[in-house]
């Protein structure tokens, strides 16, 4: 890992949190959507993160400490996928709705605005803290340049 390693790691986290916020925004925008290309109401989407780069194993750590192995690659985070919630849709009685079934019930996506807002706050805060990590790395680099002065 070079001088800018922390920036790469934090950059991947910033991207991941942006995608998370996008997914939350999509969920809130489609809270009342009853028609999708796949048919049926909109399904709530979840974002799945995974760790990029290898997890440091004990043997790897030991070899790294004793100088016998290569440096452990410290990776950031990556978005593995966006998966649909498999929960049942909400059924509301609304016989006049064009998407009502024969009993007069309309299937709406089971999206709770409170849950989505809390998720959005989490994404915003996580974005901010990773941005702070970039700032800290910048401060460290500037401090190391000051050694030469």
């Amino acid at each position, binding site marked *: 890992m070079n001088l800018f390693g922390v*920036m790469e790691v934090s950059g991947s986290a*910033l*991207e991941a949190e942006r995608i998370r916020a996008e997914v939350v925004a999509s969920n809130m925008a489609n809270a009342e959507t009853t028609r999708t290309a796949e048919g049926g109401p909109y399904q709530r989407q979840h974002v799945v993160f995974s760790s990029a780069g290898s997890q440091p194993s004990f043997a790897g750590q030991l070899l790294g400490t004793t100088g016998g192995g290569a440096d452990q690659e410290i990776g950031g985070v990556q978005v593995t996928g966006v998966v649909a919630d498999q929960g049942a849709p909400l059924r509301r009685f609304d016989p006049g709705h064009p998407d009502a079934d024969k009993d007069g019930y309309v299937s709406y996506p089971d999206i709770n605005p409170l849950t989505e807002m809390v998720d959005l706050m989490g994404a915003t805060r996580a974005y901010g803290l990773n941005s702070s990590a*970039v700032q800290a790395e910048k401060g460290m*680099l500037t401090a190391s*340049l000051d050694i030469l002065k």
Partner: protein
Amino acid sequence: MQPGAIASYAATAGIGLPAASAGAGTAAAGSGAPFGDLLKNAISGVDGLEQQASTAVEGLLRGSGVDVHDAMIATQKADISFELALAVRNKAVAAYQQVMGMQF
């Protein structure tokens, strides 16, 4: 402190005597790459980072799907690496001027 005491201290502390350390210094200087090549590589590295930054900012302004944080991080990388190159250059020029100003 007696000269003999200094020598014995150097021996116990594992510090090489002046003659030995001078020999090691010339060997290290002989095997290394020239300073000019080092400087050229550093400058081409800075240039590469600056081109990355300009591509990222241009993509951001065009709206071609570049993330804002990617452009900002690329800009900061270019800024910091340029500052490093500038600091090295200033140090080299200062050393040159110091040598030129030497009085015998």
